[in-house]
């Protein structure tokens, strides 16, 4: 597994993925739909699959002494690391953003970059992973079609969650806020996001590995 992760970083990782991870800095922008910063990472993950395909990565990896399921496991692990790293990179920028934000009304175009938001982003990643990865491992060749499906799902999710937070008064006052008093309402969403992320990652791996097992390389 260590060797596979080393391979992912040395060979499969696309340079823009690192760049997109740094995009967590966008959480400093005053009044911005912050989900956008994290949607970029979905694109970064797509680039990894695209680069890997063009470089015949699966063929290389599968001919190494690894189980077919390990090929899937290492890639999914890489994806999760990228997603979590981006969130981690976003945290200090979110804190700085709230401190220096000149707009007293806070974020006027979407949810604040608070704990609830991070939880909701984790759920967004779960959704992306659960659609993109099993679909990709059905063919291990088609990288674009799964992106269309996963992309649509992510868009619908983001719009739905943003609408809910903005339209439902309770959610608006409790979730779209940087007031420390509201943290008690936001914290459970972060925890729920973490649990959903972990559980769905495991299920996504199971389904993806099962799909990949049937693929003839």
């Amino acid at each position, binding site marked *: 597994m*260590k*060797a*596979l992760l*080393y*391979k992912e970083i*040395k*060979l499969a990782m696309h340079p823009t993925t690192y760049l997109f991870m740094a995009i967590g800095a966008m959480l400093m922008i005053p009044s911005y739909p912050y989900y956008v910063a994290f949607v970029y990472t979905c694109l970064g993950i797509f680039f990894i699959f695209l680069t890997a395909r063009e*470089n*015949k*990565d699966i*063929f*290389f990896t*599968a*001919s*190494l*002494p*690894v*189980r*077919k399921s390990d090929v899937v496991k290492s890639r999914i692990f890489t994806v999760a690391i990228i997603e979590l790293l981006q969130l981690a990179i976003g945290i200090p920028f979110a804190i700085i953003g709230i401190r220096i934000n000149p707009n007293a009304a806070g974020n006027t175009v979407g949810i604040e970059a608070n704990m609830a938001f991070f939880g909701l982003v984790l759920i967004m990643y779960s959704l992306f992973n659960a659609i993109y990865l099993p679909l990709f491992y059905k063919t291990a060749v088609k990288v674009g079609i799964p992106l269309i499906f996963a992309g649509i799902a992510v868009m619908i999710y983001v719009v739905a969650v943003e609408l809910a937070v903005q339209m439902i008064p309770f959610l608006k006052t409790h979730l779209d806020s940087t007031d420390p008093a509201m943290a008690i309402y936001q914290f459970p969403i972060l925890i729920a996001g973490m649990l959903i992320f972990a559980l769905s990652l495991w299920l996504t791996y199971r389904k993806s590995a099962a799909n990949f*097992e*049937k*693929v*003839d*390389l």
Partner: protein
Amino acid sequence: MEILSVQNLNKHYPKFDLKNVSFSLEPGYIMGFIGRNGAGKTTTIKSIMRLVHPDSGTVAVLGKDFAAEEFACKQQIGLVLGEVSYYPTKKISVIADVTRRFYLEWDANAFEGYLKRFDLDLDKTVKELSGGMRVKFALALALSHNARLLILDEPTTGLDPVSRDDLLELFQELIENSERSIFFSTQITSDLDKCADYITYIKKGEIIASTSKDDLVNSYKIVKGTRAQLTETLLPQLIGCKKNDFGFTALLRTDNLPFAAGLEIAPSDLESIMIHIEKE
């Protein structure tokens, strides 16, 4: 113990079937795998390595069931599927550095030795190497982790005659202590005439022979004769009869030699066996 045992591999594709592929290989031998383009050589190799999912059949390496102990089996195998074509823009030093971490018994000295022997420059990227050099790089990787079984798909294709000869010599060295075996597919049957102990011959997804090379070559003769000698009794015995203005050339089973009285008889080789059998 058999180093490789393949039993009844079946794989169905819409336009091609691998049918009951069975053969085995003992330690200390070289087995050549021959057949036309599209006969199923690469599919067989991929099915052995589980890159392709066979519908049925078993593969065992050193007595271990491949499906159950995939990891242990793959550690024992040096695999070359043609030239290195992956990650063309990466330096081969990087690819080697990544690859070596996967093997418990990576032998850095052996790898160095092969780099020298094959004249490979680690600072070059894959795409800077010629086709032949890419094959050599793939071989250097496959040979450097104490594999007991080498499975090589077309390892000599793209190599110049000198390199090919050198490689065949290397194959002989590798099996000398009877610990290793080599299974390799090729279109260059003269390479097998030089070094193979056994031949497995696949035609349209079916193994039509898996036997010692000498037995295979000795079981056929090439016969030549004039048109007048091509009688009604002789014709059904001939395999892949090629006629021209002067007469005919065909393959004949050695058992059927009594039919060949008066004809010019010559020993066969793998190439002539293939050409005539595939003409049927």
